[in-house]
Structures are given as C-alpha cells and as structure tokens.
C-alpha cells in the first residue's frame, strides 16, 4: 500500500479537474503543486545535503525571466523557457557552487542570500533586456486553468521521481553523509565539493522550472516579485521546514499548509496585513518545537496527541 501511495495521490490529483471545481480552487491547487516542486527542489540541497540556501529566488527568478524573455524578445512560446532555463540556471549554480561550496561554515548561507539580491538588482538595472521594474508581460496560452494544472502536476511527478531516485542512489547516500559529517565523508573518499555542487545544480534547475512555469501561468513578472527574498526564498524554506526536512512528503504537506494558510490569513480583515508576522511566528514555533517538520517529527506529534488522549 505504502509503495503505491505516490501513484494513488497522483491519480487522485489527476482526476480533480474533472470535478468541475471553481477557477479559484484550481488556482490554489496549481499554487500548491508549484510550491511543492520548489520545496522538493530546495529539500534536495537543504534537507538531504544540509546546505541551507536563502537564495532559491535567484534560480526561480532566472527560470521565470528565461521564459519571459524568450517570449518577449524572440517571439517564441514562453514554454520554451523550460529548455532555455536549463543552461542558464545550471551555469549559475555551477559557478556559484565552485566558488562557495569549497568553503565551510556560514559562507554558503551568506552567498545564497547575496546571489538572490544580485539577481534582483541586476534585473532591475538591465532595463534594455528586462524592462527593469516595469516587468514583463506575455500572452498567456490558456484562460482555463486545467492545462496549467496538468503541466504543473506532471512537473511535480517528475520532480518527485528525480528526487526519490537521487536520494536512494549512491549519490543520495553521499549527500546525507556530507550533511551528517563532512570530515568523515571526505575521509571515505567522497569529493564533497563535487557532490554538494551536483545537489545545488539539480536543485537549481528544478527550481528554475518552477519559475518558468510561474511566468507561463501568471503572464507577468517583475524583479521585486520573482527575486523576492521574503515571498520566494523564505517561503520555499518555510514550505520545507513546516512539512519536513529530508522527507519525500514534507515539501508537499508544507506546500498545502503554507498556500492555504497564506490565502486564509490574507483574506481575513485586519489580520491580513500581519501575515508575515504570523508566518514568522509559525517559523519560530516550528523550529523550536518541531525542528524536523510535521512529517519528520510525526512520531513526536503522535506521542504528544496520544498522551493527551490517554489523559482524558
């Protein structure tokens, strides 16, 4: 049963649009699936390899801009952005990995933060290419959501498969070994810089796809949105932290919770403006009490509620 769980979930998700859900509900589903793609991608680097990135907006935005610019300047379909984004995102990740991943300690955290900001400022200033803060608007392919939904679902299934295959391969064990003890990993002959760079590149390319999809789906991007530290980079981290670090289902659970929570909070009167405060508090609470997320600490949760049940 457990082995087929991903297929069952996929099948259920695939049937969903046939239920005739409203356009708003479909929009939420698309966001959930899109964020689980970003979350799963981040999880490969942050969860399995232990390299926390605060700059995945850089790759997300780069993917989005690849799609947008292909359509805007070359007149091609923005869906080509997926193919175009691969070399750009991979090259950025490789260069960054070769510079920063040699170093230990907090350098990587700081460099990723910086990368996101560099990308945003560059996109704001290269007005000839990116139109700066005006942003890029493209013609969307469909008005209906169903097409987008199936595409993003396909992406999620592919991402899940890639992450699962990677995590259960020899490389996956290298990643975890690096996270647990880099010295020990190195002494066993693992080229830690190489494998950290591989994890970064795969994670970046997958995040870039998520960004390219965002461009196609939303039809409009600007540097403040797609390179946003708070709304992309931190939200990606939160999706994984809330769901569960280094678990297959964590990012998916996290995406469901975060997207729904964001929608609910933003729609409430008065409290809507405080959604970042609530997110921040949620992040603090999760880190202190459930550092491995809902999925990762499910035993702890079960025990907590089990005890309560017994006491009553």
């Amino acid at each position, binding site marked *: 049963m457990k082995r087929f769980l991903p297929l069952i979930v996929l099948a259920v998700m695939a049937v969903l649009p046939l239920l005739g859900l409203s356009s708003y509900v479909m929009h939420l589903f698309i966001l959930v699936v899109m964020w689980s793609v970003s979350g799963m991608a981040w999880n490969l680097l*942050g*969860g399995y390899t*232990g390299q*926390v990135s*605060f700059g995945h907006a850089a790759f997300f935005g780069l993917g989005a801009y690849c799609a947008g610019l292909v359509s805007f300047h070359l007149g091609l379909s923005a869906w080509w952005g997926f193919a175009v984004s691969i070399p750009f995102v991979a090259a950025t990740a490789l260069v960054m990995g070769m*510079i*920063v991943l040699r*170093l230990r*300690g*907090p*350098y990587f*955290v*700081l*460099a990723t*933060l*910086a990368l996101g*900001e*560099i990308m945003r*400022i*560059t996109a*704001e*200033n290269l007005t000839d290419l990116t139109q700066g803060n005006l942003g890029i608007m493209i013609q969307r392919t469909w008005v209906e959501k169903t097409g987008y939904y199936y595409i993003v679902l396909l992406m999620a299934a592919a991402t899940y498969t890639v992450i699962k295959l990677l995590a259960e391969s020899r490389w996956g064990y290298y990643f975890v070994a690096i*996270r647990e003890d880099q010295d020990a990993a190195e002494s066993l002959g693992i080229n830690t810089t190489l494998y950290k760079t591989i994890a970064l590149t795969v994670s970046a390319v997958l995040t870039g796809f998520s960004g390219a999809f965002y461009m196609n789906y939303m039809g409009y991007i600007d540097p403040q949105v797609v390179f946003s*530290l*708070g709304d992309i980079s*931190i939200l990606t*981290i939160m999706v994984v*932290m809330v769901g569960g*670090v*280094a678990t297959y289902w964590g990012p998916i659970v996290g995406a469901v919770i975060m997207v729904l929570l964001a929608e609910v909070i933003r729609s409430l009167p008065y409290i809507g*403006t*405080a*959604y*970042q*405060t609530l*997110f*921040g*508090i949620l*992040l*603090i609470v999760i*880190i*202190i009490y459930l*550092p*491995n997320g809902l999925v*990762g600490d499910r035993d702890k949760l079960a025990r907590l509620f089990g005890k309560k049940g017994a006491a009553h």
Partner: protein
Amino acid sequence: MWVQLEVFLQTLIAGVLLGGLYALIGIGMTLILGVMKIINLTHGQLMMVAMYIAFWLFSLFHIDPYVSLLVAPPLLFLLGMFLQKALINPVLRVESILPHNQVILTVGIGMVLQNLATIFFTSDYRSTPVDYATEAWYLSDYWRDAPFELSLSYPWTVSFCLSVIITTALWFFLTKTDTGKSIRATAQDRDAAMLMGVNVGLMRVITFGLGAALVGAAGCLFIPIYYLFPALGAQFTLIAFVITILGGLGSTMGAILGGLILGIFESMTATYVGMGWAPVGRFAIFVAALVFLPGGVASLLKRKAVSK
C-alpha cells in the same frame, strides 16, 4: 583635472564617513558570530527598531537623535538579551537534522520585527528633520585659494566621530574588563573558557545584547542622515554580512577595515558607475572576497603577525 580630483576626493570622503558607520554595524554582527557561531540575519531589523525609537523620540519629544544614543542602545541591549534567552537558546539545545536552524530562526524574528513595524508605523518613509541636516564645513572657508572645493557634511562628520568613539570604548571594554575578556575567551574556545570558570551561557546572552546595542547605536547615528522605512532592515542585514565576510568571520579589527573598504567602494561605484549599481558593487566585492580572500582582511592581518 582639478574637477576630477575634486570629485575623487569628495567621493573618498563620503566613502570613509559611510565606512565608519558601516564598521559599527559590522562589529555587532561579527561579535555575535564569533561568540555564538551563528549568523544573525535579523541584525538590520534590530537597527530598524532602534531607528524607530530615535525617530519617535524626535517627533514626539523633540529629542535630538544623537541624544537618543543614551536611550535606544540600552533598550536594544535588553531586546537582544531577550531574543537570545527566550528564542535562540532553546534552539541550541534542540536536536534537528538541519545545522542552520538558528539562522533560519533569526530570519523568522526579522520577519516579525519588520512586519510589526509596517503595521504600527506604516511603510511611509520617515526622517528626522534636524535643523543642522544640510550644514557643512567647506574647504574654501579655511583655505581661500583652494583650487577645488570640498565639503564635509556636519551630521555625517558628527556621526562618524561618535562611531569612532563608540568603537574605541568597545575596544577598551573587550580588552580591559573581565567581562570583555570572558567574551573574547568564549569566542576563541568555548570549552576552554568554560573550564576556566567563564559563565559561557551568560556571555552569550551579553554578547547578543551587546551586538544589538551596537547596531542600535549605528541606527541612532544613521537616522539624521538617512531615511527610515520598515524594509530598510533587510538591506542593512545584507550590508552587515558583507562587512563580516570582508573583514573575516569574528574579527573586530577586520570588521572595522571591512566597513571602511565597503563604504569607500560603494561610494566609488555610486559616483563612477551609477547610483543604482552601488548595491551590485557591494556584492561584487563580497564575491571577490569569497574567491580570493575567504578569511577576510583578518587573515591578512594574521599572516603579517605570523611572519613577524
């Protein structure tokens, strides 16, 4: 030719003045990093809080921002101690997969601070219109036949001098007092310090408070010459960590030099490349430091000391 020299010198002066203030921000960050081994990604947000304190003191009670140096840093000290005791300490004990939980935690704190500031104070740009804001000393006042004109803004200079005074006071505190020595010992080797009877837990709390107080002081010095809005914190957090990397992690001297280098470099990029590109210059120098000098300026200082 004189014009070019004038522009260059004026840019240099602006850079040094800015760098002096940056150094104060960087020292707070590097102290926390040295003692706690965590990056405080809410550093700029703490500065924002201090700036709001100074701003409200000015607009409600007409207290000069420089006088609020006596109010805001102590308050920030308490806030820093509270954050450390209530939030960061529990996380240090929690078992988790990710090694960077405390860093993510500081991001969470920063989000809360920034959002609360937006709710309570709106995202309007604020400033303290002090009456000496536009006054300056001119070179031609002192040297009548000067071939070029240089000016030294009054508030910038005062802020710079106060920053130097605070830094010197901090240096005395760290090198001459028992508490200061204990902090440095904790930064060097936590376990050895503990064995020597240093209360490491207390030192951590004091250090976080001290780091917050320093950046709070920087906030009070910045408010007469800068403007204030809730999202300003993120920008200064980035500046603080660039300085920290540039100076060398945990090195106070490095942070001072790093601050100066960054200030001059930013000022130069703003003049010679363009205003919008100044932040890119900031990151270019950051990347250069990562590639060529990962240990920062501190590693150069150390190398020199060793070769002696």
